[in-house]
């Protein structure tokens, strides 16, 4: 599904963000990406979304080499990856329904499909009754659930969540995690960058830890931190 082979990324200003990254994420996995701020989590996500090109190595997405693609092909790659951000990024002048249907309109979906899919994903994130509310009428958790609905409405095989619970209180964060788990159970591969220790520890999923641009740990059913001797 996602494969990095010997990937290096050095920014133009000389900062080495990632070194020798080898990573394989299989279809249907739920992977946590952890590590301190500035470790390279965001860079890794940017490489998948084609916001940045790697300096060295190869990147594959859905068995397709996306290391170097023409600019005009990038939108079509992004259609196979849903994204959720820490800051939600909803359009304030559109209702919940419109915020989600917008993602389908952009790719020219049939109105019939829009009318079918939008209510479906809204019920998946438990927001059917808020379909006609505007973002300012929603809570933080509801904001993020709209963002998730928007990310999955075009049924991408991969969902990337960049600190999706970062702005939410613990209880709300758990609500979001339940939604993400449900989406994962339906077959969507999920890669989630996070700092939320208790969530990672409780979910018992694969954990990939990055530090200073290097993968320092990759374990099944992992926890947020390696046991520290003497702790």
């Amino acid at each position: 599904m996602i494969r990095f082979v010997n990937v290096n990324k050095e920014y133009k200003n000389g900062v080495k963000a990632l070194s020798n990254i080898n990573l394989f994420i299989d279809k249907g996995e739920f992977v946590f990406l952890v590590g301190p701020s500035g470790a390279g989590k965001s860079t890794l996500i940017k490489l998948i979304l084609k916001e940045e090109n790697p300096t060295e190595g190869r990147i594959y997405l859905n068995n397709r080499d996306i290391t170097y693609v023409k600019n005009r092909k990038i939108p079509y790659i992004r259609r196979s990856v849903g994204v959720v951000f820490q800051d939600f990024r909803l359009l304030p002048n559109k209702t919940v329904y419109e915020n989600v249907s917008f993602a389908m309109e952009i790719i020219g979906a049939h109105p019939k499909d829009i009318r079918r899919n939008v209510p479906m994903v809204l019920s998946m994130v438990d927001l059917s009754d808020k379909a006609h509310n505007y973002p300012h009428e929603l809570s933080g958790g509801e904001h993020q659930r709209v963002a998730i609905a928007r990310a999955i409405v075009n049924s991408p095989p991969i969902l990337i969540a960049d600190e999706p619970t970062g702005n939410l209180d613990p209880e709300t964060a758990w609500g979001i995690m339940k939604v993400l788990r449900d989406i994962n159970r339906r077959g969507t591969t999920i890669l989630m960058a996070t700092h939320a220790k208790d969530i990672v520890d409780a979910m018992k999923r694969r954990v990939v830890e990055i530090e200073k641009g290097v993968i320092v740990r990759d374990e099944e059913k992992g926890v947020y931190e390696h046991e520290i001797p003497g702790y």
Partner: protein
Amino acid sequence: MSMRFRVIKNILKQGFKGLWRNKGMGLASVTSITAVLVILGIFLILILSLNNVVMDTREKFDEVQVFLEDEITASQIEEIENRVKESDKVISVIFKSKDQALEEMKKSWGDEGYLLNGLETNPLPHTLIIKLKDIEYADSVAKSIENMEGIEEIQYNQDIIEKLVLFSNYIRNGGLVVVSILLLVSVFIISNTIKLTVTARKTEINIMKYVGATNGYIRGPFVIEGLLFGLIGAVISILIVSYGYNYFFNAASDKLYVLFTVYLVPPKALMKDVMIIFIAIGAGIGALGSLVSMKRFLNV
């Protein structure tokens, strides 16, 4: 196919929305385009009319006038006529006596012709009018007879025509410079207007990119918006130029300037070209302005 159609429909819808959202700056854009096009129109009319004058002058003045002394004899006149006729550059030679000349002048003065009745003596000379095949032969024909008996003065209008051509070149080049500068200013104003829409829709554009909207889809509405500003400006300036020029033309022909309006391009002959040029330029500036403003934004 129908997917493409829906995408185009969305782009158009967003374009019109942007047009409405930016009414204020849009007015500035439309005004600047209108101003450029109206000025362009004025130059166009000037240049075309001057061209008319040059062409007409060339035709009218492809002759040499030989003013003769009053005491000239018939044989002397004949001698000059024969000399001139030898040249293959000459079409015809006509003798006009001083009485004929005065009579013609009275006619051309029309109602005021009676004023000439008060003259005690006729001040006009006998004239030989030599029609040439082309004005550029005037010099050599004049030289061939200038030393003959009975000639007072030889007059031709080579220099007038040269001056006219020079003058119309100045007007054309000046117009080109002024219009180019104004075109640049308009592109700048439009691109700034479109930037407002771009900024207003920054989040939306960002989200669009992550959801996989193509650059064309993102750029489309802004190009439409710019194009619409350009077209509105073009339509307004077409109206201004056509009504304005029509009014001016009629007013000028009604009153005393008939001689002058002869040289003006008739409004009807002009309008079709003006419409095509204005719409093309208006749409061009609009689209260019919006592309300029978007360039920086799409590199993500």
